[in-house]
């Protein structure tokens, strides 16, 4: 039992904190908000040079073989600076899906490119009718002469506009109809039949909704050997939720720090706001919830390689609890900044919106308490 950081982990945290503080300033964020790409390729190159893009990739595939703790350290730092680079989509989700499902040839072709910063990915999985059910996919992949034909619609595709390749989930169909298995398909950006409605994402970065109309893909576009991809999707999404939880902790900590400072400086009725007990107690509650969120993010990271039920319970528990804490912390940060908190003139609003986005990604608190209850045998999913 040891929860202290190793020397390497401490160094990683320090360099990430420093880089984020220097690079992701308020001005940078405002510029990025108007960028159609949503992030800076020059910074992405620096991420690669720092080794961050190689972090969780196996050494055999050009990576550093790190795990969920290291990812969490980076994500927390990213949260502090509202980083909008497609790290989650490309490294935490994309590379992990390739590593979980891909053939050796696919891993060799894709993973080193990610580590070098030469390839970005996006994951197109959610569908409107599915809400947050990972198993609900209506998009179909039909075997055709020499390849696959994809049809369907995807929503909330993070960083789709920036992606060189999009990993699209689809139900594999053959001549006799649906097989019941999910497959993951590599779709190159700009593939004929692929249309995208791109948008600026709440809280920073880009998202899009995709339509796939008879998108023709070669046979090797399917990741892996055609076995059901759902377990891998669940694994990767559970780990992504742990990573997002760490990012949310970084955002919440920044909101707490900023709000603390503000209540000390802002004077009304001849004394600082922080002299009022009602404010002090509110801040105590905020601090407590930030700390609870920190514990849950760490717990989800430590359980990232556990067996599926334990891993799922930890991930859903973390997502639900951190989501609940995040809403409270975000709303109180705005409240305690008074009218200024509701303006675009402070950064508070941007952090607030990123937490709102966090809460809904992969399902909100109600969904994940329900999943936790189902995985615990309390309700039937």
């Amino acid at each position: 039992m040891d929860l202290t950081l190793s020397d390497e982990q401490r160094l990683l945290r320090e360099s990430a904190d420093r880089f984020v503080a220097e690079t992701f300033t308020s001005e940078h964020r405002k510029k990025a908000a108007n960028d159609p790409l949503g992030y800076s390729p020059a910074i992405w190159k620096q991420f690669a040079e720092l080794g961050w893009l190689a972090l969780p990739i196996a050494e055999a595939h050009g990576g550093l073989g790190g795990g969920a703790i290291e990812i969490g350290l980076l994500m927390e730092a990213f949260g502090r600076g509202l980083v909008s680079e497609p790290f989650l989509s490309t490294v935490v989700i994309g590379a992990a899906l390739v590593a979980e499902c891909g053939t050796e040839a696919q891993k060799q072709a894709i993973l080193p490119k990610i580590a070098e910063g030469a390839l970005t990915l996006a994951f197109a999985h959610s569908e409107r009718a599915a809400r947050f059910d990972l198993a609900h996919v209506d998009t179909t992949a039909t075997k055709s002469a020499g390849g696959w034909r994809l049809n369907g619609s995807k929503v909330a595709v993070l960083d789709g506009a920036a992606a060189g390749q999009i990993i699209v989930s689809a139900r594999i169909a053959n001549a006799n109809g649906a097989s019941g298995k999910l497959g993951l398909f590599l779709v190159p950006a700009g593939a004929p039949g692929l249309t995208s409605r791109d948008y600026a994402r709440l809280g920073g970065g880009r998202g899009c909704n995709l339509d796939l109309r008879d998108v023709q893909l070669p046979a090797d576009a399917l990741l892996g050997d055609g076995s059901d991809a759902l377990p891998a999707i669940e694994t990767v999404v559970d780990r992504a939720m742990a990573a997002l939880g760490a990012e949310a902790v970084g955002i919440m900590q920044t909101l707490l720090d900023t709000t603390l400072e503000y209540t000390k400086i802002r004077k009304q009725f001849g004394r600082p706001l922080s002299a009022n007990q009602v404010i002090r107690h509110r801040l105590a509650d905020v601090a407590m919830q930030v700390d609870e969120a920190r514990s849950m993010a760490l717990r989800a990271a430590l359980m990232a390689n556990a067996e599926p039920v334990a891993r799922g319970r930890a991930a859903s528990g973390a997502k639900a609890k951190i989501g609940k804490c995040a809403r409270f912390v975000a709303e109180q940060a705005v409240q305690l900044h008074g009218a200024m908190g509701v303006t675009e003139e402070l950064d508070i609003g941007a952090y607030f919106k990123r937490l709102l986005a966090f809460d809904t990604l992969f399902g909100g608190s109600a969904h994940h308490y329900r999943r936790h209850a189902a995985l615990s045998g309390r309700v039937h999913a």
Partner: protein
Amino acid sequence: MDLTFSAEERAFEQEVRDYIAESLTPEMKRATALTPSVFSDPDIGMAWQRALHKKGWGAPGWPVEHGGPDWTPAQRWIFEAECARAGVPNVNVMGVKMVGPVIIGFGSPEQQNFYLPRILSGEDYWCQGYSEPGSGSDLASLKTRAVRDGDDYIINGTKIWTTHAHHANRMFALVRTNEGERQQDGISFILIDMKTPGITTRPILTIGGDHEVNQVFFDDVRVPVANRVGEEGKGWTYGKYLLEFERGSGIASAKLREALKTISDLAESDVTGRAIDDPDIAMRMSEVEVDIDALEMTELRVLSALQTGQNPGAVSSLIKLRVSEIRQAVTRLGVDVIGQDGLAVEPARPFYRLNHEPAIPEELLPVVPEYLNGRAYTIFGGSSEIQRDIIAKMVLGL
């Protein structure tokens, strides 16, 4: 980083498990399960204290020269967790966890030699004389006075919320020996024999129907000056040291997990008509369990810091606050799980020695009293409002 315990620690865990299995009697276990108050009755609690003492585990937090087992923080964690899992009785924490550490830290060698072995063996049963009718959260305003008369103090005043004063043969108390400029000055820490003439005790029934706390009156009670711990007028420092122990007294998540499991088992049983099939109950069960997960992780973070010789910081207030709130959430869920059986009031005590057949199944008896008595969790040991004051000051630097 990893969450697993070492092979030696696993072996220790097995040793604890084995010892509990051989020494915890079914009577003790049943009595503990059917006790709705915070503390076990002394006959049950002290039987367990004697069993622990026999093994050399009577005071896990004490240094080895005073009879402690010299455990690492991880061993203490494992011990507490196994005790919670097995449902052992509460021992007299006012002795082992409160006055014991103060005597070890600030008492004279004579006091240490006299009192400490009697706490370990269970010969003495302690109560805590802190709060007064006019001094609750503002403890330092206490007025019980000790006036020097030769080699004695003469004590006059009253203490309240005194847990198990009606069972205890000794009390440690904060008394005013001087009018200082600050109200914290002039307070002394004193050890009182409860059989001293002039002491009377009035029972106070709590809303759950239990007699656990009392008011104690002192009328010209003569206590030797030799019974004062440490310096005269420094009692506030010693008393605060103890309150830190009370707040940080270890590992609550394992106990809360067991309390939730008890409610969860009831919810899955026909006794409650399978309350768990109500999706709202099922969701709340998960919500509370996740809160316990977060608390456990925070406790493990503290443990890891202690293990590596770091200072965990001012987290004890933070933990106290969450523990009390989660306890209340568990007991509240319990009331909702048992539904209309909660209407039946059983005034007799203890539940494990009733002379009649109760109106509702025995295992449901403690549920409502636990909820009612449990309202005190956010009040005693520094109310939640006081804890938030402390967090604002100590954690946030406001």
